């Protein structure tokens, strides 16, 4: 079992480049366990890079990333961390069930797990269909179902609700909270600010830096705003970019 007092993820002074561009420059953040943490920010701010680092598939320049008490990417974590990439990473030329059966075999999860995650993601009636014939929203749910196999301790979800209709989004957020209540830690990225209020805790990110790490209510109170979008704009005005000519530098970008 996870010690609920220890953070699920602890990142210290993380530097990551992708290609020639530094994406994360000295980022430090902590993700508490057993709750739904939202990672919000505009496209291209480094959300996916941070998630890839936590899952252990990203080459990093420097910094430490500890996941569930171990170094990110260590072999023993591969059973304990579920990862959903932004684009559904599933096989289009297999049925929903065949996809999940393969991932189940790789994870060594019990056989009944396939039916369990099919029910959780509301895909039972599509189980025999080829994934390539499904809608975009259904495909991303297959991808999510794959990550739920084997009941991982940490779920890292990169924009899992993109392209889903509102009803389904509500259902998924209910599922996320249901999983958190049973002890799973969730880190969910989104660029849709109105999803922020559904998280237990928020990380607001911009240009490779964490602007805020707070509860949704705490964030609104601290910024004196009424919604997360307003809070985000207020924070941006307080923390201008280094190349913003009107104000001082935030520093650290050239390291």
């Amino acid at each position: 079992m996870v010690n609920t007092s220890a953070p699920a993820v602890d990142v210290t002074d993380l530097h990551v480049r992708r290609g020639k561009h530094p994406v994360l420059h000295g980022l430090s953040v902590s993700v508490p366990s057993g709750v739904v943490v939202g990672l919000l920010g505009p496209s291209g701010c480094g959300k996916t890079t941070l998630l890839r680092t936590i899952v252990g598939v990203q080459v990093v320049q420097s910094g430490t990333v500890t996941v569930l008490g171990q170094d990110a990417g260590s072999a023993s974590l591969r059973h304990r961390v579920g990862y959903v990439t932004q684009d559904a990473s599933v096989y289009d030329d297999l049925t929903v069930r065949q996809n999940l059966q393969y991932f189940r075999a790789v994870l060594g999860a019990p056989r009944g797990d396939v039916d369990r995650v099919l029910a959780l993601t509301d895909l039972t009636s599509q189980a025999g269909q080829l994934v390539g014939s499904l809608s975009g929203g259904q495909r991303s749910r297959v991808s999510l179902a794959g990550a739920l196999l084997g009941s991982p301790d940490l779920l890292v979800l990169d924009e899992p609700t993109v392209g889903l209709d509102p009803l389904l989004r509500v259902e998924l957020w209910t599922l996320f909270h249901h999983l958190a209540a049973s002890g799973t830690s969730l880190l969910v990225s989104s660029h849709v600010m109105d999803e922020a209020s559904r998280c237990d805790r928020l990380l607001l990110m911009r240009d490779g830096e964490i602007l805020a790490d707070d509860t949704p209510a705490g964030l609104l109170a601290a910024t004196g705003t009424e919604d997360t979008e307003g809070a985000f704009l207020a924070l941006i005005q307080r923390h201008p970019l280094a190349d913003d000519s009107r104000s001082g530098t935030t520093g650290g970008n050239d390291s």
Partner: protein
Amino acid sequence: MNPRRTLATAGRVLSQVRHDPRTIVLLLVVPSLLIGLLAWIFSDTPVFATIGPGMIALFPFIVMFLVTSITTLRERRTGTLERLLSMPLGKGDLILGYTLAFGLLAVAQSAVAVGFAVWVCGLEISGSIWLLLAVAVADAVLGTTLGLLASAFARTEFQVVQFMPALVFPQILLGGIFLPREQLPDVLRSASDWLPLSHAIDALQAVATDSQDAAYVGGELLIIGAWIVGAVVLGSVTLRRRTP
């Protein structure tokens, strides 16, 4: 590495192919059609008897190289590889799983090609037809493993298709089909000694004419086997869990 995961991967790849009947037909029929075309072109000459065995090595080798390299590249590009490598799947499980699945297809393909060449096109095989099939299968598996390796160095489908002329054509030109290897210039002759396809063609011609004993063919099979193992090992090494 774990046999259960390797077999699950092979089973998954075969299920994918099963959902794509056109690929199956192309895999099984194209080499035979090409061999048939060649037999027709040279119908009133003794040429087919000399180059026919080489063709049995060539077409399955090329087809398996292409199919495997593109399939594995697709896995890299659709994000499923990233997902698998974040899961407890060994790199060897993936490569061996692919090798097993496509190796099985290669057996079927080579059997059809050999059967067609011998019984339909009238290719004369003086030696053991089973030995001929064994060399043909080893050759198709070699195409599979080289295709796996090539896909590691390609970022796009365009690049991986370019590897075909780069890696495969020189082997065809130097393999002894166009000109017997003994008549090649010295430098090219020694270069061709190092290429796996040369040994496959030598072995097939030896079986067809029954000019060498089984030990010679076994030796050639060992060389091809060494290339297969080398490509599998190198393919696993080039597979990275962490990418930039």
